[in-house]
């Protein structure tokens, strides 16, 4: 029996690697999360980043297919919670309007809206969890004290 188990292990390992390469976290988040996220987006983000998530020339950066949205989640959460005052550059275009801090949003709302943004406008990326938002907010508190 033991001899037969070794190849099964190998098969499982192989399957695991295939799974990783398929980026399993690119599956669509639950509809309820997307709906809640969309509600927050409409109220807080839409006037600047627009209905199609493509932003406004020179002013408000696009959210579609950019490293700022699809890259490290901590950085993205930090931008939403703490804001961003430095102009940013995407594909040679500079966007000048500041991103205001959104300290008034709950952890749930931040997680929902970022999950929505990372899975809308042609984006497909892993969900943002409440725990991840909490972690970023905690680091802000440490800095303050």
């Amino acid at each position: 029996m033991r001899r037969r188990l070794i190849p099964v292990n190998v098969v499982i390992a192989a399957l695991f690697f295939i799974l990783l390469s398929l980026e399993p976290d690119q599956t669509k988040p639950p509809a309820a999360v997307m709906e809640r996220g969309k509600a927050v987006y409409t109220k807080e983000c839409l006037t600047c980043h627009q209905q199609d998530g493509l932003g406004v020339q020179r002013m408000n950066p696009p959210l579609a297919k950019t490293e700022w949205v699809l890259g490290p989640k901590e950085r993205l959460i930090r931008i939403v919670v703490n804001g961003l005052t430095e102009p940013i550059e995407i594909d040679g275009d500079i966007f000048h309007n500041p991103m205001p801090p959104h300290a008034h949003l709950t952890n749930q709302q931040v997680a929902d809206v970022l999950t929505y943004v990372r899975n809308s406008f042609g984006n497909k990326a892993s969900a943002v969890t409440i725990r991840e938002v909490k972690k970023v907010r905690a680091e802000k508190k440490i800095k303050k004290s």
Partner: protein
Amino acid sequence: MKTVKWYLSCLFFTCVIVVSACAEENKNIPDTTAKLPAAVAGPGLTLPDGFTATTVAENLGRVRHIAVSSNGNIYAKLERLKDGKGILLLKGGNAAAPGSFGNYPGTGIAVKDGYLYASSNSAVYRYKLNAANEVENPGKPETIVKGLTDRGQHNAKSITLDDAGNIYVNIGAPSNSCQVQDRAVGSKGQDPCPILDYAGGIWQFKVGTPGQEFKDGVRYATGIRNGVALSWNSSVNELYVLQHGRDDLHRMFDDLYTVKDNAELPAEEFLLAKKGSNFGWPYCYYDGKQEKKILAPEYGGDGKTQGRCEGVDKPIMAFPAHLAPNALLFYTGSQFPEKYKNGAFIAFHGSWNRAPEPQAGFFVVFVPMKNGYPNGEWEVFADGFAGSDEKRASGRVDYRPCGLAQGPDGALYVSDDNKGNIWKITYNGK
């Protein structure tokens, strides 16, 4: 048991793979909302009877303001460098092989009394022109003013010159409404607003004195959030400015302003800026329906109260909200019919803060003027830049009017900073 576990694991992973594969399939469904509008051929502009528009140049880049010399040379200021250069020269208006110089991006450009003036986002330069109205020494401009505030937001240093040796520079406020934290929900307005000491107005400098700094300028008019469109009106010897009004009344104050209110407030203001004028930003905004300056909600306003805004200088005309006036030109030519003489052309870049309501603007407007004041209603002069009603509503337009200039023959030039087109509008009616 162990074997069963392994097989269950295998089954589970297989399921996951199948699910993932389905998700992959979903990926192939095109998401039309994320697609940029396809490039289309330039549409014809719509103009009043007797006027014709011809495309002088296409795809020049981010052309902001333009200036035309007495022999028809077009100078265009680029907001994004092209091959390392920020100013284009179209000799005699010919777009084939334009010359280029100036290693700084920016908005302002003007030709006056044998000089070309151009601005970066923090300085103003000038170049001596030769008899052919070409720059003699493109690599070595004189620096007229340097060190002006550039914090990204509202940094366009648009310029205009009077006939007495002064240059006027827009120093836009790097802020929406001077809150402690710009554009943040719940952040109070600073009172007094410290930005007004160094921005949020029009500053006057001497044209012939190189090396001036901010402190050498005179704060000519204040309380102007961002006055990209400004022009000296030589027929009455006064400065006129159009203000980009504040944003985000609904997002930040949803208890006072609806989504629709946000799309309609505040008015974009046409200002006659006299020395010492104060138009009230950030404490006040102009409500075109109430025809009053209203106290801003960051300073305790509720959409109706005037308070400290009662005595603030009012606009000479109000336009719909968020249309973004980016250029102003007083027409002095004799090619156009009599009603256009000394009237004002205004290029509206088009809105974004009206969302989710339909966007608006993206046109050139005419205001008849008499003795320096509007003499009738404003009317749309040139339209069709957006490309279609759908494109206008979404804001994903073909062209965005940004600059205006008058040719020696009295033709009107319009520039676009989306693709970089320049049109020449002529009158051939009777």
